[in-house]
């Protein structure tokens, strides 16, 4: 099963595995660009190209991180933001799967619902903020609702589309062998659409982080989005950069977790 494409044949070594598939090479390769960026950052700040307010050095960002960590604020901001993302993502994705399944499986609900949902989807995310604050006040509920809205649509769309494109002949074969309703769904339709559903979940997670920052930027007293606005107002560019780096790390980490799930799902179902 270790066939090698012509493209990769040059980089094949004795073990028969292309270099680009080797674990150590992938880890080191992926770290190269961030390391180069960090180096560039360090060099430009050391050379004094920008003022510390414009671009503080990596060391001072690190110091800001330690400072916030010791005061217990860093863990607090990260925890509250992560919690909002996870809760909002789970609610939005869950509703997205349900609505997507409804519209993807039933022609009637497609006729009744798909137009309306598409219209709601067309509303830019930030347009919801004033309304949510008016209805749900500046509390957790309004933020989580906004994040759930963000996570809902990618899942809804991918689930509905994937279910609608399951090979009808395969579904008919299932029916011919006595599968119906939920069993048909579990045996044929769900597995057939699972790979695209999982990539929809990854999109939704990215959306959830996006909407988190939108929610926290506008009205919040804690979380990474709050850290961003607060630092901006106090001229603490080091903290601002710290918040951005943390968002990058958290986004990448949560995406990697879903990636592990996706690989499992693809191995199992595709």
């Amino acid at each position, binding site marked *: 099963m270790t066939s090698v494409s012509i493209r990769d044949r040059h980089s094949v070594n004795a073990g028969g595995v292309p270099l680009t598939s080797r674990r150590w090479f992938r880890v080191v390769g992926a770290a190269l660009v961030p390391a180069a960026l960090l180096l560039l950052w360090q060099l430009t700040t050391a050379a004094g190209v920008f003022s510390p307010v414009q671009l503080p050095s990596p060391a001072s960002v690190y110091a800001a991180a330690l400072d916030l960590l010791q005061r217990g604020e860093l863990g607090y901001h990260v925890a509250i933001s992560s919690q909002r993302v996870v809760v909002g993502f789970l609610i939005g994705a869950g509703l997205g799967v349900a609505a997507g399944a409804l519209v993807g499986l039933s022609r009637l609900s497609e006729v009744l619902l798909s137009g309306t949902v598409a219209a709601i989807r067309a509303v830019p995310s930030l347009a919801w903020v004033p309304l949510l604050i008016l209805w749900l006040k500046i509390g957790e509920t309004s933020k989580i609702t906004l994040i759930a809205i963000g996570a809902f649509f990618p899942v809804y769309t991918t689930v509905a589309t994937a279910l609608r494109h399951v090979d009808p002949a*395969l579904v*008919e074969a*299932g029916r*011919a062998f006595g599968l119906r309703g939920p069993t048909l769904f579990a045996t044929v339709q769900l597995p057939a659409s699972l790979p695209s559903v999982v990539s929809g979940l990854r999109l939704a997670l990215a959306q959830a982080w996006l909407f988190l920052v939108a929610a926290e930027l506008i009205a919040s007293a804690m979380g990474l989005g709050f850290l961003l606005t607060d630092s901006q107002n106090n001229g603490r560019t080091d903290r601002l950069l710290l918040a951005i780096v943390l968002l990058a790390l958290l986004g990448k980490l949560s995406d990697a977790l879903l990636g592990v799930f996706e690989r499992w799902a693809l191995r199992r179902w595709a």
Partner: protein
Amino acid sequence: MPSSATLTARPRAVVDDRASEVVLDRVGRSFPMRSGTHVVLHDVNLHISPGEVVVVLGASGCGKSTLLRAVAGLDTPTSGRIHIDGEPVRGAEPRCAFAFQEPLLLPWRTLAGNVAIGLPRGTPGEEGRRRVRELLGLVGLADFAGHRPRAVSGGMAQRTSLARALARNPGVLLLDEPFGALDALTRLKMQDLLLDVHAAAPTTVLLVTHDVDEALQLADRVVLLGRDAADGPVSIKDVITVPDDRPRDRGSAVLADLRAHLLEGLGVDRHNGARAR
């Protein structure tokens, strides 16, 4: 109609009560098209006795698959009625098992997992696994039970699809060109397998093929579908009762006559512009 002589001459007086009777009564099917209605089947009448092997022969596109899908309840005729054991077919029919023209296996399941789909609902786990192993062995795929469909050839997938249909222990076995993707030798082996399975548990078989020789080897009766006019609807043009017990001598004079007759029947279509294959 089969002559009573051929029926009583068969050593399958002990017809399993699983075998079903199939009656098609003036079955028609047309499809609405932008250019008007496209009549595919018209006035198809057929009475298939329990345990009988009926082979449907006809040119490509004449409606053979459409006919089988109607019997399986996967498609509803626009006119006429289909009864299985006296009960009308309504929706996917549990007494039928279908081996489709395409294998239509679930790509994420192993061959064994796919055959298991065919098992009747409520088969106990151990017995089910045993039966799946047995069937995969019968179609010569014992060593491939754990393979995914993508990792086997088209012919192997088709044999898996046959095993899945056999797993059902059906009253009516519907086979749509089940040996189409097989090489000549495997094809003969699978024909023998079908006859063995049928001899052991004589279920009703409705099989579609393009191959006149295959029809003459397998069938109690051959049903020839065709058109009267060049672009007219398809109906049953001829029904031929094939004499002699199976296995049959491929060189026999009687079969040669029938072959010529059937080829002529298919060839008439050719003169009228339809393709015979």
